[in-house]
């Protein structure tokens, strides 16, 4: 059970992914069609786009939208989730809306935002936030419901201030839920941002994919996608994992009790 749920060993990534690239190269060189470029051709496109500055321009536009939408969704979703988890009235008020929003396709929100507010940046970011907030709220609500009442009583007896209760009692308990929302959030948000860009922005990776689609430039499509996958993995490695490690240190005491 624990073997199945834990991450596979690092070497499997170094075996499976290169094998996949090799297979891709073989199939592509066998078919010899522009609809499936070889890995080398994609790399070539990547270097060209990077050298011209196009790649970085569009990458930073997309990344900017992802970051703003992510921060807004986490703040809003966490606030709503905590309130819903702690108050039955709030839960009764918000839950029907959550059900509605969770089942609303992202595409519908995006179209409605563009129709109502025009093809502007605010509409684009809002569409992403509206899609993501319900997911964050649902995850954080679970966390807020599982807050340990015994620690609440302790905090009451020892006259914790509101800030102490938030920082020292709630946040550490909510942390695993916030991390889950963050992980799911990044993955979901950048995918929605691409659609938002495809439908109504004039920069960003989604916009570039749109152009490439119109001229069937598969090499460009793959080059841009792979770049963004790399960026998201980089965020995971240099921000999320260290953060998680730092905040869960108390779970693995370095010494057994004396």
């Amino acid at each position: 059970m624990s073997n199945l749920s834990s991450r596979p060993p690092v070497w499997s990534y170094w075996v499976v992914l290169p094998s996949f690239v090799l297979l891709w190269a073989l199939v592509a060189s066998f078919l010899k069609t522009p609809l499936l470029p070889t890995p080398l051709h994609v790399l070539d496109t990547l270097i060209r786009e990077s050298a011209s500055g196009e790649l970085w321009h569009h990458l930073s536009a997309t990344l900017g939208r992802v970051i703003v939408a992510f921060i807004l969704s986490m703040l809003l979703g966490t606030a709503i989730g905590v309130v819903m988890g702690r108050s039955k009235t709030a839960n009764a008020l918000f839950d029907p809306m959550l059900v509605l929003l969770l089942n609303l396709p992202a595409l519908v929100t995006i179209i409605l935002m563009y129709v109502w507010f025009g093809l502007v940046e605010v509409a684009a970011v809002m569409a992403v936030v509206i899609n993501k907030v319900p997911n964050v709220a649902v995850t954080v609500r679970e966390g807020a419901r599982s807050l340990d009442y015994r620690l609440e009583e302790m905090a009451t007896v020892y006259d914790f201030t509101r800030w102490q209760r938030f920082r020292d009692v709630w946040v550490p308990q909510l942390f695993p839920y916030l991390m889950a929302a963050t992980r799911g959030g990044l993955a979901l948000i950048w995918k929605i941002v691409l659609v938002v860009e495809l439908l109504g922005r004039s920069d960003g990776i989604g916009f570039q994919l749109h152009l490439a689609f119109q001229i069937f430039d598969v090499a460009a499509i793959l080059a841009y996608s792979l770049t963004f996958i790399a960026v998201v993995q980089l965020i995971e490695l240099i921000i999320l994992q260290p953060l998680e490690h730092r905040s869960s240190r108390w779970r693995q005491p370095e010494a057994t009790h004396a």
Partner: protein
Amino acid sequence: MLELRIAGRSYGQPVLGEVFATIERGDRICLLGPSGIGKTTLLNAIAGLDKTIPAEAIIGQEKLKVGYLFQEHRLLPWRTLSANLQLAGATPREAEVHLASVGLEGYGHYLPDQLSLGMARRAALARCLAVKPDLLLLDEPFASLDPVMAGELKVLIAGLLDANPGMAMICVTHDGGDAEILANRLWYLDGKPAQLQWDDVVGEPRLLNALLGKLRDPEGFGLV
């Protein structure tokens, strides 16, 4: 110091009935009674944790500072012992002093999960001291400790009470032997809803012996 007036809950099936008592500084009360009768409920009411018992039911002359040793240690597992004590109001220096007074000198930087059960309970006791309590509430402080550790903790608590003569204590226990060492006053909680059946000073051995006899033989309510 504290006039206790609990009128029982106004709705639902009340666990606690009417409880009237006056607690003075220096009182060392052991609260005995059958398990599940509401001893912890009474402590929670005194600590102001039970919102179903009206707050005005408990009348104190001044705002009492209460240190509560729960059955579990309830230290924040993600904070060091020193940080846990500081959250209860101690300065870093005081935290070290309080930890030392329960035999945990130099353990300030440890996390609660790194401690044994007995050490964690003593750390929680140090946190009670961090609020400089007028009233110390102890909920079965010796439960699930081995006899040696329980004995050490008893001596430790008796010593802390001697060192702070202005402090009152209410200690929930199942064991009349604890009362012999710690108490100068006994409460016996029983009935449905539960009321204080006895409120006696231990000075009279006749009462203590009768009470201990009743604890050993619940059917024979032998005295008076």
